[in-house]
């Protein structure tokens, strides 16, 4: 039955019991509500980041902090390039996931396997990029709680716009960089943990598909549920990208 036809029935019939009024399974509804609550967690992180930035006199410049690229010399000035690549990888892995879900709708086992493998590869590629970026920033002195008590002070000017007044930099630079990197590592770390658990879930689903579990069950709804989670991870990255790299 098409959803529109069902929706037109009287609410007494739809909500009268005996079937899901939303025409969705329990598991899928719960996945949606879990994702909504997770959106508030990420939202709280990003809003506290925004508030802190709002009342800080000085803030690191994203184009100065994130300007390196793997296999390029450290002096290379390529702002936004690496994070754009990461964003693109995650978008593509979201696309392969939706193609896996679509193959599941068609009960096309080979299609589900093919697109799940691509999704897992995309997830691992994204995590590798993030590991590189964290490692790179760590080599430049950035970490949770870094730059306090005058540590690595000589590295600070690299994180700010070139025309920052030296007096302001001396007074506020360490504090601003410390706050910026605390938020950066916490938020990208929390997102990365989501990606990592998503990859694990994807692998479990892939193994179940190969074993024919869903073929026997008669539907591929588990692919849809994990797909929702995976798209959510991509969705959060869209906001992290805007907040940390663009604004």
């Amino acid at each position, binding site marked *: 039955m098409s959803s529109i036809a069902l929706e037109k029935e009287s609410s007494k019939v739809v909500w009268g019991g005996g079937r899901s009024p*939303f025409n969705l399974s329990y598991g899928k509804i719960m996945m949606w509500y879990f994702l909504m609550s997770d959106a508030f967690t990420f939202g709280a992180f990003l*809003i506290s980041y925004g508030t802190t930035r*709002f*009342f800080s006199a000085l803030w690191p410049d994203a184009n100065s902090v994130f300007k390196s690229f793997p296999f390029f010399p450290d002096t290379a000035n390529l*702002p*936004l390039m690496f994070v754009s690549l990461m964003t693109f990888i995650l978008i593509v892995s979201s696309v392969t996931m939706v193609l896996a879900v679509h193959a599941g709708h068609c009960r096309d086992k080979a299609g589900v396997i093919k697109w799940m493998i691509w999704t897992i590869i995309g997830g691992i590629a994204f995590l590798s990029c993030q590991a590189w970026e964290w490692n790179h920033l760590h080599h430049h002195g950035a970490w949770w709680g870094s730059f306090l008590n005058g540590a690595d002070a000589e590295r600070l000017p690299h994180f700010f716009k070139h025309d920052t007044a030296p007096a302001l930099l001396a007074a506020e630079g360490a504090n601003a960089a410390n706050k910026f990197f605390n938020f950066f590592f916490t938020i990208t770390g929390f997102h990365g943990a989501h990606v990592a658990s998503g990859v694990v879930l994807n692998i479990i689903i892939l193994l179940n598909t190969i074993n024919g579990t869903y073929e026997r069950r008669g539907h591929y709804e588990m692919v849809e549920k994990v797909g929702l989670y995976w798209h959510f991870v991509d969705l959060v990255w869209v*906001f992290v990208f805007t907040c940390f790299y663009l604004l």
Partner: protein
Amino acid sequence: MDAQSAESKAKVRNIWKITAYLTIITIVEVIIGLYVSGHMSKFYVNSGFILLTILKAALIVKVFMHLGDEFKNMILTILIPLTLFIWFIIAFLADGAFWLKINHMFGIR
């Protein structure tokens, strides 16, 4: 639905179309970030970034997560709670503005 049917092929075409949109939006954001940001009023640039971000989010939720295909009531149970974010942003900007004022008042910047 058969994987080779016209319906299935139309859906796959739509997925790739949305992929192209998402990619184009990201490229536009990067171009603005590299070449426009800093030459224009920050307010307009940032408003543009936020609008493009929300557009991307809407495309992902509506098409990739298939929320657009669900019942209206289901869509509303997801979207209405998220409107709390409007209040959060207002409240926390007001809080930030207060801190800014206090910091200026006591000379801590």
